[in-house]
Every structure is written in C-alpha cells, then in structure tokens.
C-alpha cells in the first residue's frame, strides 16, 4: 500500500453498501471504498469492511430500528476511528429510513468530521410508498446528518421513478442514482488525481464544503457527439438532483469538473462551464477542473458541486479558504428561487396546502420532473 486514498467512499447500511458495490468498479484509483453494515450478508468478501454491532445484532440487520443502528456503530467506534484517519475527504453513501443508515449515519459522519476530513454525504430517501414512519425517520436522520456533514445531498427515490420510462426494468431505475452519485464522486476524485489540463486545488474544493450544515448543490450530466461538453452541461443543469425537493439551485461557490475525450475543445469546455455558472451561480468562488481521457472519446461528463453559507448569516457570504475578509458594505440578496417565481401569478395569493404540498407551485417543480430541453 503506497499511500492512503484521497477519498474514502463509505457505504453505510444495506442500501449504501449495494450502491458503493455497484459504483466501485468504475471508480478511479484515488477513491478507496469501505463497507459498513450490521448485516454481514451485505458486506462484500473482497473489500475493506467493518461489520457493525456484532454483539448487538449478531450478524443480522437492525430490522429498521434506528436505536439499534446507533448502538451498533458506537460499539465499533475504535475500528471506525482507525479506518477514517488520514483521508482528507470522506464520502458517505447511505440509505435513510432503515436502521443502520438512519441510526449510525449521523454518528459515523460525526466521527469522520472529528478526524479532520471534509465529509460529503449522499443519502437516498425512501420511496413515498414505503409509508409515513419510514419517511419521518428518514427526514429526522437527514436533518441530523446534514448538521454533521460538510455537504449533504439527498437523493429522493421518488425522483428515480420519474426518470425512467414506465416499462424499464428495476435495475435501470437505480442506475440513474448510480450515475448521479458516481459522476459526482468521479468529479471529486478527478481533482485529486494528477494530470488534469486545468488542475484544481483539492484544498479549494474542501474549502467550498467547509461549513457543516450548509445547503449543498450536486449535479451531474453526460453527453456525447459534437459539442459533447455542452450537451453534458445541459444535462447537468437539468439534473433532477439539483431540482429535487429542498435542493438549492443558486450557490455562492461551485466546483465544476469537465472531462471529455481527446477531441474536447476549449470553447466547448468553457461554454459548458459558463452555462453551469449561469444556472447555479458561483459568483464567490468557482473552482474549475478539466481533463481529457482517451477512454472517453466522443463523450463528456460535467459534474457540479457547490455550497453556500446557510441563509441567515448574509454578512459572512464571502466563502472560500483564501482568508478573504468579510466585506460588510456588501448586501447579499436572496436568490429568486422562492415563492415569487415558483408560484407564478398566484404569488400574492394565500397558500393552498393539499396533502402537505403547496399546490399552487407547478406540479413539475414539486415532482422535480425534468422538462424536455427547448427547441
């Protein structure tokens, strides 16, 4: 073992482990995978694993009990601390609503943050068919996780259903989630890998995600053909992850990673970046990374990661690890993502809540359905 991987990818719980297992085949060398679960059957044999709660659950799952998940993780605290040491970036992939992910997730994220790593968490939220209790527990866990992670991205399973045609096979549904999360992780890993044409400073990326609990933006798009990078950027701009419930669409700092085949032109790449910036912001800091890869001939991928400070502290809007002093004279205006735009000409009218949703907001926004691109 020459050196520790720059990014430690943690699969936590059944859903997390299976997603990391699917992803790990296509990940670059900078990413090391680690599997954590209470259920020993979901831990792969040929990878780094930590089985949680051997005493408590005896190799079974937690059966959806959040308390059991937490206790299981606490019992392995020493092993976890050892495994988490040294990695500058820890990416946790988990599924919320069950026992291990919801229970152990916040604890593991806390340990990772204690170890000095920048923690980014991708959490899948349960399908709404899975019932209210699961949904409620997932929401609670998401709040707890988001407070401990530097970046938190919720992948709503309901979104997945809307991304695929009605007659597609079950694995294809989850492939969309794999593509988004995998793309974001590849983009992140690319910043740590040598040989980029436009290299990014890994520290700058860490600084984007420096504040725990800040709203995080994540988007990924792939494209092919002529001007593949532009196609990919358009897909990233329309990525449902960035338009899901509770997602932010304007952030102060973003990291954009563009990768393409050897024929990737600079115009194409920078047009793509401009398009992403126009959509997502990034006025305070934009960290760029571009690379070409012979294996990606004719294709391109754009991944975007961004964050701003939490809303109520506009005076500290200047982010980034450059040590810039706050500019007190500058007012930060709220972004126009709110009701005024979303509700259209019902903007002034009283809210109408049906089934817990404000039904004046267009259905396609609430369900985060990606509309066909313009003509």
């Amino acid at each position, binding site marked *: 073992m020459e050196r520790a991987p720059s990014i430690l990818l943690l699969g936590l719980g059944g859903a997390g482990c299976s997603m990391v297992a699917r992803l790990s085949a296509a990940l670059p060398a900078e990413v090391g995978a680690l599997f954590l679960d209470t259920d020993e059957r979901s831990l792969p044999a040929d990878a780094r694993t930590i089985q949680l709660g051997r005493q408590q659950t005896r190799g079974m799952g937690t059966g959806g009990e959040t308390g059991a998940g937490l206790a299981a993780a606490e019992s392995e605290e020493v092993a976890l601390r050892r495994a988490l040491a040294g990695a500058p970036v820890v990416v946790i992939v988990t599924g919320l609503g069950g026992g291990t992910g919801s229970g152990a997730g916040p604890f593991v994220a806390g340990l990772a943050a204690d170890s000095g790593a920048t923690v980014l968490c991708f959490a899948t939220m349960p399908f709404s068919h899975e019932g209210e209790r699961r949904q409620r527990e997932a929401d609670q866990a998401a709040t707890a996780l988001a407070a401990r992670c530097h970046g938190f991205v919720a992948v709503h399973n309901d979104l997945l259903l809307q991304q695929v045609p009605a007659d597609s096979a079950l694995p294809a549904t989850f492939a969309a989630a794999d593509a988004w999360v995998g793309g974001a992780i590849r983009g992140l890993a690319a910043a740590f890998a040598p040989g980029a044409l436009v290299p990014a400073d890994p520290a700058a990326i860490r600084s984007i995600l420096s504040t725990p609990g800040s709203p995080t933006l994540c988007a990924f798009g792939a494209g092919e053909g002529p001007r593949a990078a532009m196609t990919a950027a358009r897909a990233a701009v329309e990525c449902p992850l960035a338009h899901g419930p509770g997602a932010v669409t304007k952030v102060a700092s973003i990291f954009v990673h563009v990768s393409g085949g050897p024929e990737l032109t600079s115009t194409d790449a920078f047009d793509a970046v401009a398009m992403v910036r126009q959509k997502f912001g990034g006025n305070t800091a934009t960290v760029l990374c571009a690379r070409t890869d012979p294996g990606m001939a004719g294709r391109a991928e754009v991944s975007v990661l961004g964050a701003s400070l939490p809303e109520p502290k506009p005076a500290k809007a200047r982010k980034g690890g450059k040590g810039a002093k706050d500019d007190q004279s500058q007012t930060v205006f709220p972004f126009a993502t709110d009701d005024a735009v979303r509700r*259209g000409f*019902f903007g002034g009218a009283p809210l*109408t809540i049906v089934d817990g949703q404000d*039904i004046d907001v*267009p259905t396609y926004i609430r369900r985060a359905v990606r509309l066909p691109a313009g003509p």
Partner: protein
Amino acid sequence: MTPKPLPSLIAVIDIGTSKTASLVGQMIGGQARMLSFSERRTEGVVKGVVTDLEKLHACVHEVVHDVERGSGRGVSEVYLSLGGPAAEGERVKGLVMVPARDGRVTLKDLQDAVASARRQEPPAGRTTILYMRQPTMLDGKPVASPVGMTGKRLEVSFWRVTMEEALVRLRVGMVNGMSIRVRDFILASHAAACAVAQDADKHGGVLVVDMGAGTTDWILYFKDHILCAGSLPVGGEHLTNDLSVALRVSRETAEDLKCRFGSAVHREADVNQTIWKDGDRGLGDQQFNRGTITRVLSLRYQETLDLVRKDALRQLEGIFPGHAVRLDQHMLPSGVILTGGSANLADACEAVQQTMGLTARVGMPVFDNDSLRKPEYAGVVGLMRAAITDAPPAARRPRGLWEQLKALFRL
C-alpha cells in the same frame, strides 16, 4: 317539503373564477325557454375565493344589467350557485320510530323525521345553505315514498351543504345590493351534473368532475342520490400558471399556448416538435418545444384528477367504514363525466382513463341554444335546470290583462 311556487321568470347567476354568467329563462307550458344570456370576465375572485368585492360587485352588476336588457324584464330574484372548497357537504339523518300500532307511516311521521334531521345544527360559524334529499329508509330498506307503508323505523337523510356564514352573507349582500332577492342556493357541482348527466347515469353511478378555472368541483351520484361531493382549489388557471412558469411567458401567451397546443397526456412524439407562438415567424415570435408544454400540462392535469380520486375515496371510506371501497367500473358504470372549461383540453378523457381507470366523456350541457353547448357553460345551464327541477313549477297563470298580453307577445 312543500313545493315552492315557481315564478314564470327564472334567473340564475353563476359566479366563477374566470367568468360570471347569468341566464334568464321563462317557464312556458312546463318547458323552460331561454330569454337572455350574458357573461363577463370575473374580476376579484382567485381560486374561487372573493378577494376584491368591489370589482366582483361591478362585474355581477353588469351581467345582471345585460340580462335584464336582453330579456326586457326586470329580475327580482335569482338562484345563486355556491361551491368551491369553502362549501362542505355532509349527510344528516333524521329518525322516528313509527308510533302507530299497525306500523303504518303517516305524512306526519315523515315530517317529524325531516324535522329531526333539520334540527341538527351545523358547526359553529357555518350556515346551512341547502338540503338535498337522500334515500328514505324504512326498517333499513330504501323506499321511494314511505307514506302508507308499514314499518317500525323511519329514517330520512339529507345531503347538507354548509358554508362559512361570512362568505354566504357576502354573496347575498352583493345580490341584495342590486335590489334582487336570492331565491335559493344551488350547489355548483350538482348544477353542473344536472346539465351533463342523464338520470340513467345518476342511477347507475357516475362521477361528475367540473374543472373550472379556479376550482375543480366533483360530485358522485350512486342510485339516484348524491353520495359525496367535494372541491379542490385547483383548476385551469393552474395549468396556465404552470406553463407560464415553465416557458417564462406571460399569462396571456401561456393561456393561448395551452388552448392551441396543450394536451392532458404527454406523448413521446410531442418531444422535438417545434411550435411557434404566433406562427408568422415575425419579430417577437418565439418557438417552443411542444413536449415541454404537454409534459407540464399533463402532470398538472393528471395530478388534479388524482387529487379528486383521493378525495372521493377518502370520503367514501368515511361513508362505508371498514369496506374496501374502489372507484371502478362496478361502482360507477357511467364512469366519469368531465365538464367545465378545462374539459376542453385535448385528450382530457384519456387522462381520466389513465389516472382513474374509468371510462370518461366530456359532458356537453343539453340545451336548445347551440352557443351554450360547451363544457364551460355546464355550470350556468345546469343551474337553470336545477332551479326548475328542484322547485317544480306551480300551475299559475299570469294575473292581469297586461301580463297576459305580455305573455302572448312573447310566444
């Protein structure tokens, strides 16, 4: 239960979110004939809720003025439609044990039962706007007319619609302000159903969905009676709004695009179809992807229908607790009748089939005037029908010679 004497002149006003329509008709030989009709764009109503009384008042005033001029008669009393999410329907029951020793039900028993049903107070702050007769049960069996039959337990039930008192007073006050009396209220969804559903439909079971501009009112008939009804504050304006948000165009443009290119069902073939806003490709003309339009509209349309389905199921579960209620062909052989302005959207019936799994048709109001045979006029035409059928006309001849002459010339 005494039939009210019906004047030969009947005026109805239907205040909707997008238009206010009024119809004046006359009963001649038991048949209603239209004398005049008027409609105006409603102002001051959003999602079925009055937001600007002054504007609405002006608009209603104009409509009344128009119909009075058109018919050449002064309107002294009107039937008013009430609906929207503010109106709530519920079932009230009255019960008497038949006192006669031989168990024969007398008219007085029936009246007692009716009185006991009506004695139930509506919730505080709400007022009853109308009662509608539901099946009468004698010893648990439905009977058409119990008087003279024998039994022990007589049960009458009504569909009672209540509304917040302030809202009712607002409307009544507005009409009274024009020296016009409100003769009666009629539930808007019931009115629409009267225009588009046949008696056979109501007997078998039918769901009438009146999708207007601001609200979607639905009513479910089963065995000739109202089983449940409801209303959602979503309508055609939401379709327009969604489109204007998605395409970033003005309300007018969105409305126009909705009518010309909209569909309640999104098809793969719509994507990549480019359409032009004006079609002349001149300055200011814009092109849009038709797929975007149908996607946005179909999502909203089908969501609205789904909300209706859920609302209906929720109410049905309340009526038949413990039963697995399903809205299917078995319960509703006549399926769904879609009416109101938003029923004009292309493929509306297909959307109903997809979301509810029921057969559907667009209900055109049955009326002798061609120009009113459109779904958007179901409300006002039905109001007229309901006004006639709910209070059957008394045989009454015009009194004075002058009245008789007038009636003669009108024929």
